[in-house]
């Protein structure tokens, strides 16, 4: 009896959450996929009408902008956050005084919600109130920093706010990685008289590859699902210059009563996520088998 329980209790305990995930995640993915092939408008309808929603989606200039923005935002956000995070982590790794306090300061932005970050940066970057107005009031009359109101630059303003929010978190990840490298190897290298930058570039950073991958995955999914930051910072504007796929989907589903269109954009977003996550899972699983 006890043996039977030992064998089956874990399964029974896991079963409800397994069923819930099956329905509420995979079930609704399937539902969304189905709806994306229909002409659903205000309410879902279930007659399959082919690829019409995808044709409309790819003909829409707004969707083009959203995908371009995702690419720009994703690349810069992930790249800059990782570089900045690594740099900060290496600086903190120099056994400096008050490391704990500094670490907390850098990590704090992560404790804020994206809405707060967005609202704060909206005012900071507002040309009439924030940085531009301040610098001008110091006497530099020609200083301009109007990214947030310039449709060509607005997406970079979003990157600035997002990097500010996430780079401290990346720093913490990397710091943990740096600390996990075997002290003995580093000491041996120092005894051999290898310069510090070589120790980092040839020994420590290569041995942190899994951390890089984790940081990348975390940042990538943050980038793809970012929604609240854009809503709070620019509202998708000026015009729809800072639209991202998530805000596009929201507008279609909840403002415009175009559920089929929203479903098709959601499916494309899911495709993008899979394109990133599947290679990761594959490499993880293969690594375990080896």
């Amino acid at each position, binding site marked *: 009896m006890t043996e039977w329980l030992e064998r089956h209790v874990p399964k029974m305990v896991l079963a409800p959450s397994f069923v819930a995930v099956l329905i509420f995640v995979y079930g609704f993915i399937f539902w969304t996929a189905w709806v994306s092939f229909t002409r659903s408008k205000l309410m879902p309808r279930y007659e399959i009408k082919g690829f019409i929603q995808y044709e409309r989606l790819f*003909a829409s200039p*707004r969707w083009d902008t959203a995908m371009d923005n995702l690419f720009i935002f994703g690349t810069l956000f992930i790249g800059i956050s990782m570089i900045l995070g690594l740099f900060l982590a290496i600086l903190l790794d120099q056994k400096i005084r008050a490391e704990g306090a500094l670490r907390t300061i850098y990590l704090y932005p992560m404790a804020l919600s994206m809405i707060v970050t967005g609202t704060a940066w909206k005012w900071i970057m507002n040309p009439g109130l924030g940085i531009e107005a301040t610098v001008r009031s110091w006497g530099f009359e020609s200083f301009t920093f109007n990214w947030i109101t310039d*449709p060509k630059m607005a997406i970079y303003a979003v990157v600035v706010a997002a990097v500010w929010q996430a780079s401290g978190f990346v720093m913490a990840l990397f710091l943990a990685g740096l600390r996990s490298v075997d002290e003995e190897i580093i000491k041996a290298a120092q005894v051999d008289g290898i310069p510090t930058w070589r120790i980092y570039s040839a020994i420590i950073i290569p041995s942190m590859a899994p951390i890089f991958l984790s940081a990348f995955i975390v940042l990538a999914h943050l980038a793809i699902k970012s929604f609240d930051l854009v809503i709070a910072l620019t509202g998708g*504007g000026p015009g729809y210059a800072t639209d991202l796929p998530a805000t596009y989907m929201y507008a279609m589903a909840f403002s*415009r009563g175009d559920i089929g269109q929203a479903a098709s954009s959601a499916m494309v977003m899911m495709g993008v996520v899979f394109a990133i996550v599947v290679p990761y899972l594959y490499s993880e699983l293969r690594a375990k088998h080896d």
Partner: protein
Amino acid sequence: MKKSVFAAAVVASFVASNIAKAEPQAEVLHWWTSGGEAKSVAVLQKEFADNGGTWTDMPVAGGGGDAAMTALRARVLSGNAPTAVQLKGPAIQEWYEEGVLADISAVAEEKGWDTVLPASIAGHMKCEGSWCAAPVNVHRVDWIWANADVLEANGIAMPNTWDEFNAAADKLQAAGVIPLAHGGQAWQDATVFEAVALGLGGPEFYQQALVDLDPAALQSDTMIAVFDQMRKLRGYVDGNFSGRDWNLATAMVMNGEAAFQIMGDWAKGEFLAAGKAPGEDFLCSSTPGNGYLYVVDSFAMFDVDGDDKKAGQNLLADLIMGPNFQEVFNLNKGSIPARTDVALDKFESCAHTSAADMAASSDEGSLLPSYAHGMALRGAQAGAITDVVTAHFNSDMSSADAVKMLADAVANSL
């Protein structure tokens, strides 16, 4: 006193005719949750209770009604629709097509709604000939507001044509005043756009392009001229306009930082709340051109089960269209009554202009639904047009490109 006797008689007639001693019940979904709006809805709530009804309030704030629509979808999908829902324009017809709206023709015909409502507004309230919604108010969208002192100091009169407007704006700009207070949000861009389209193209063009979505009109030279004017207006707003809320733009006109604002008559509420007097501190007139763009808030009646709910629905419909509610509500909200037979003694001068223009334009067929505020088109089409308008306004796109993009976007949204 007389009114409540009258209302009681109405209730009595329902009790007698339709139902046996069921108490009227209504669950009302709306998103009038802020200041004056909440006060306005409380008036209706009180009248409903005074007539023996039980009102279940279901306010869902957020997203300019988006959140409420999401709640409504969930309720309808679960087969438990509210009694009445704040809906407007083509959304009423969209829900009708889903087969979930009730027929309130009995009340409407008994009370002769057809004779007291302008024909085009009555049209929105009917689903294939039967009444399915009750109108609450009429907002006019094509208003231009101005700071009286600024205009006087610069020797400018309210413009009657867009050329006059441009000349005035150039003069103001030279004098260091921001000519046009504007907030760079898509719906505000669209609000200005439709006022320009009506002004430059006239009511017929507006009807063809933004109501009937006639491709020829959408790609016409008139539309190019409309976008040219939008580009001009872009030059008249300050550099800091992106994302600004409309009431902040109104405040700029109020404190003399800017001269004009093009905005619906909810802006009037801001002026009045700040203690400004129409005609003295601020001026109102329709935007240059001929015609009248309206937004009519209304309650659509959903199919409900049970005599008590049906009685509640009929009572609610009757109260909404009652002259008393129409007056009190619109005094609070800044709009004018949808009923044309309500005395306007308590309203200020801008509302009188609005009511007179509504009657006149209704007679000559230029009383038109606002596209920017969801009265003329369904969400997908209106959204597609707004996307183009705001993309053009916020970039250096040429008018010809914008017109082409407009035609493509509209075709793609159908």
